[in-house]
């Protein structure tokens, strides 16, 4: 972080304290199946003992934003943050119910799931516009980070001046290439993790304390 960024953060922290602003809401965003709910569950379980929502290999399992309040994250130096974690539906520009029937879901249920998923995406965008103070942007490290939805979403987040930490997830998989994500978004910190196995999440917690504190 350069000096100006640090100064801006200190100033915004001062304003937050001065005006008694509410806790920061940190949204976990990303395309479908990037591992957002797996990470949200891990964060919430590590620091509160609860869970946020079910996970599935079928895209759009999360179709409503879910919030866990008062999550305190701390490190060995005694630094800590208290945040709300918001797990959001995967953002995309297309949803076809046939995608769900390929997983064995009946047509009627697939259509319903698709309709809920479209509402979920719109809801996620609304949260980002109105109610989110910082973003963890999740990417599947086995996939191309230059996908249009990622370019758009990072642009939207940047335009709102929200602090963002990019997470290269699924590094436990053999095809994972987190280096591609780092080269795609050199302007942001990128932390490589396995949300499923918990690999390197401590580094993510350190970065969250630094960026969202």
């Amino acid at each position, binding site marked *: 972080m*350069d000096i100006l960024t640090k100064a*801006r953060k200190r100033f915004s922290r001062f304003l937050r304290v001065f005006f008694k602003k509410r806790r920061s809401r940190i949204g976990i965003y990303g395309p479908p199946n990037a591992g957002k709910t797996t990470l949200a569950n891990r964060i919430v379980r590590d620091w509160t003992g609860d869970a946020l929502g079910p996970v599935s290999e079928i895209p759009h399992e999360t179709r409503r934003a879910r919030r866990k309040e008062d999550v305190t994250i701390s490190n060995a130096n005694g630094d800590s943050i208290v945040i709300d974690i918001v797990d959001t539906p995967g953002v995309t*520009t*297309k949803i076809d119910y046939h995608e769900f029937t390929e997983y064995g879901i009946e047509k009627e249920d697939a259509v319903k799931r698709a309709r809920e998923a479209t509402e979920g995406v719109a809801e996620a965008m609304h949260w980002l516009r109105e109610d989110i103070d910082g973003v963890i942007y999740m990417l599947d490290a086995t996939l191309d980070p*230059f996908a249009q939805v990622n370019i*758009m979403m990072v642009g939207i987040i940047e*335009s*709102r001046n929200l602090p963002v930490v990019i997470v290269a997830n699924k590094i436990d998989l053999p095809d994972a290439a987190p280096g591609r994500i780092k080269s795609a978004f050199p302007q942001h910190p990128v932390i490589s993790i396995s949300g499923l196995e918990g690999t390197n999440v401590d580094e993510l917690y350190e970065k969250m304390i630094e960026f969202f504190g």
Partner: protein
Amino acid sequence: MIQGVQLDLISEERLARLTAMEKIRLILDEVMAGNIVVLEKGLSPEESSKLIEMTMMEINPDGFSGIEMETYPARSASGGFFARLFGNREPTSRLTVIGPANQLKMLRKERDLISAWVSSR
């Protein structure tokens, strides 16, 4: 009759005359009619956000399944001292191609190259 796909290339000047909602409505109307739209200058982040929301509202089973959209990664604005101080570093938007998700497929995309395949309905 010859099968084909209509391609509309919209200039930066024409886009500049439209409001955000007019742009989004123009794009969605064209794409829902099965056309491909090429914008000389892409949408702002705020417009992109609204386009995603509006697209979700238009999706219906066995009909419109959404959009495929491709653009080059944005160039960061250079931003002088004051722009950096006040966080005004909005990136510049670039040429953008948008089409129906079931007709426009990306073949290859790099920082400076987009290769796409368009099929007729």
